[in-house]
């Protein structure tokens, strides 16, 4: 890897091009700055308590470089563990560092924002749930949640607090708008309402058992999470999933991309008062979900991907049903796209709304389709393809405007591309078994998948008794939530639902 020639890199075997390196805390900032200068992006940051092994604490940082995934492990002391903040290099690190403190008591020094993040009132400050000595079931008297929002002052400024219970079928989170008239001066998000203790819960689980849990970190991305987790488990077991299994996984991942984009394209119509769009796109989404249920036994393909392969094979009529579905969806989506494109009222609301300029997207680390809509040409399926994506070309969709219209356009392109990819995949059918048993093994493994929203990373550490020591699932929403705050600035409050839906970020995947 070019990023930091002084690093002692050790390759991580598996489907993902990945390497790891052990560094000292005082090297962290420089290594990150060097990597960033060469185009690396921050994927995830989390911590581990290894004090039970006499090793103190550790910070882990996952970067995506030109040559693949780079996992840094930073050994920290057992008492008052701390490390230099890297939020000045990678702004997305800020909230991850705050969450790491809330959960593990590992402190980022020199950070400009050290407010709590995932902790509300469920456990007191000074208690760190992810420490080994802390029991999963330890419940505390609910405390008050004092959170110092940033106040905007000046003539005519007032605040609108929204949530956690929103008007609509939406996940819970709190939004604090500071406005003048109808115009948003500042939006501040407060997340963490859905924190369910997923990482703590995984500790001690068997590998197969945790697959069900990881598939429910963010239900709308269950395929991406299950695949990334399977990659991590297979990396530890030094096992390659059978070719037919990875072939089926890719079909499932593209189906997931299609039905999520279809659902959001419908809601984006609804949010600009074109309920026609909602009913049309959700009609198509339902057709796709019914095919999922017929072929794979689950409308959202939950629990289909398992460590070692897939849980069940597609029935013989599968390819035919998928060809039919793709043909139907393609013609309908093209018709609906023309209707959206030519609808003056829709375009008037879409264009210019919620703009994230390419420079801002680049510096803040916007990712996934939202990044591609702000000119960032990055897609794991193209840049670092794992099997079977290494066997065919994926045409990446990008757009330079970064507004709602751009995100809509990229979503349309990606639906059509996924429909094409499924047909390409069907033409390259693989025979053979779909699952291989996993040998018992311990160690560190990582998986990385381009889900519909962006890169989903799952890192796993397994102990000598094949029980999970540490599991960290990372949702791309971590990177994109801060950009939503920026996207709504200078827009009007009534456009917030539209802008929010154009990103459709996960609360559950972020809150863990």
């Amino acid at each position: 890897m070019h990023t930091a020639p002084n690093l002692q890199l050790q390759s991580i075997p598996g489907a993902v091009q990945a390497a790891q390196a052990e560094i000292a805390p005082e090297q962290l900032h420089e290594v990150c700055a060097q990597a960033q200068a060469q185009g690396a992006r921050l994927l995830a940051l989390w911590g581990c308590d290894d004090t039970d092994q006499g090793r103190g604490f550790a910070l882990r940082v996952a970067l995506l470089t030109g040559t693949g995934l780079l996992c840094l492990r930073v050994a920290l002391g057992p008492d008052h563990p701390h490390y230099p903040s890297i939020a000045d290099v990678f702004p997305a690190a800020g909230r991850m560092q705050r969450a790491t403190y809330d959960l593990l008591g590992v402190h980022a020094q020199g950070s400009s924002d050290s407010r709590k993040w995932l902790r509300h009132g469920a456990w007191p400050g000074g208690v760190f749930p992810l420490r080994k000595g802390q029991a999963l079931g330890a419940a505390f008297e609910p405390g008050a949640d004092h959170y110092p929002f940033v106040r905007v002052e000046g003539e005519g400024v007032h605040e609108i607090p929204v949530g956690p219970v929103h008007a609509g079928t939406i996940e819970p989170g709190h939004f604090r708008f500071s406005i003048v008239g109808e115009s948003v001066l500042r939006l501040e998000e407060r997340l963490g309402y859905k924190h369910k203790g997923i990482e703590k819960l995984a500790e001690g689980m068997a590998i197969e058992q945790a697959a069900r849990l990881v598939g429910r970190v963010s239900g709308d991305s269950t395929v991406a999470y299950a695949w990334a987790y399977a990659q991590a488990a297979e990396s530890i077991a030094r096992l390659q999933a059978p070719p037919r299994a990875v072939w089926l996984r890719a079909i499932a991942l593209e189906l997931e991309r299609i039905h999520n984009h279809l659902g959001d394209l419908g809601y984006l119509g609804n949010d600009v008062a074109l309920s026609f769009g909602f009913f049309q796109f959700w009609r198509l989404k339902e057709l796709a979900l019914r095919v999922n249920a017929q072929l794979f036994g689950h409308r959202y393909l939950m629990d289909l991907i398992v460590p070692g392969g897939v849980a069940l094979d597609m029935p013989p009529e599968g390819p035919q049903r998928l060809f039919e579905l793709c043909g139907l969806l393609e013609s309908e989506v093209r018709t609906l796209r023309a209707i959206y494109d030519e609808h003056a009222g829709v375009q008037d609301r879409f264009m210019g709304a919620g703009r994230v300029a390419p420079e801002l997207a680049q510096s803040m680390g916007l990712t996934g389709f939202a990044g591609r809509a702000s000119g960032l040409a990055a897609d794991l399926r193209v840049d670092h393809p794992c099997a079977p994506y290494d066997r065919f070309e994926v045409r990446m969709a990008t757009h330079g405007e970064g507004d709602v219209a751009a995100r809509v356009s990229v979503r349309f392109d990606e639906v059509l591309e996924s429909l094409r990819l499924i047909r390409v995949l069907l033409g390259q059918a693989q025979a053979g078994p779909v699952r291989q048993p996993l040998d018992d093994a311990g160690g560190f493994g990582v998986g990385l998948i381009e889900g519909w929203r962006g890169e989903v990373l799952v890192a796993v550490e397994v102990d000598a008794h094949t029980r999970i020591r540490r599991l960290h699932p990372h949702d791309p929403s971590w990177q994109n939530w801060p950009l939503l705050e920026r996207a709504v600035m200078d827009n009007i409050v009534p456009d917030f639902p539209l802008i929010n839906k154009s990103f459709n970020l996960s609360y559950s995947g972020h809150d863990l």
Partner: protein
Amino acid sequence: MYTLLKQIARSGIVTDVEVQVDDALRVTKQGLDDAILRRFGRSLSIRHVDAGSCNGCELEIHMAQTAHYNVEGLGIKFVASPRHADMLLVTGPVSRHMEVALKRTYEATPDPKLVVAIGDCGCTGGVFGESYASCGRVSNVIPVDVAVPGCPPTPEAIMQGILTAITRERTIG
């Protein structure tokens, strides 16, 4: 506009699901008298509260409101405020960070009110169970009338749960 109208005409009416009441979903005995149930049955307002789900159940609650299922065709609509609601549809294990918000939403809903817990997590805590961060099932936090299992439950099952809550319990035997 012509292509839009043509598309509507071409799509036709796609609603193809009929839902039956299922008494097995009841958690508590139906406590509302016939007069109230008759009123609810004609026009029911629902407030959905996500108390900590993985967002899977939300996908199917959305779907119940689409053309294939047409929950609004039964006189059931989703409203923006608990103060306008007759029923709370609650998803997720209740995260400890949502406990207060859920209780306040329940208190803000005028009596008589109904609560339907949606999904395996809402029924039992599901894969998340009870922990430092999760209160587990919905009935650990507020009273529940009907619980609909599934991960996620299908739109039919969700509609069945809603209908069961507003229907008089059939006497057995």
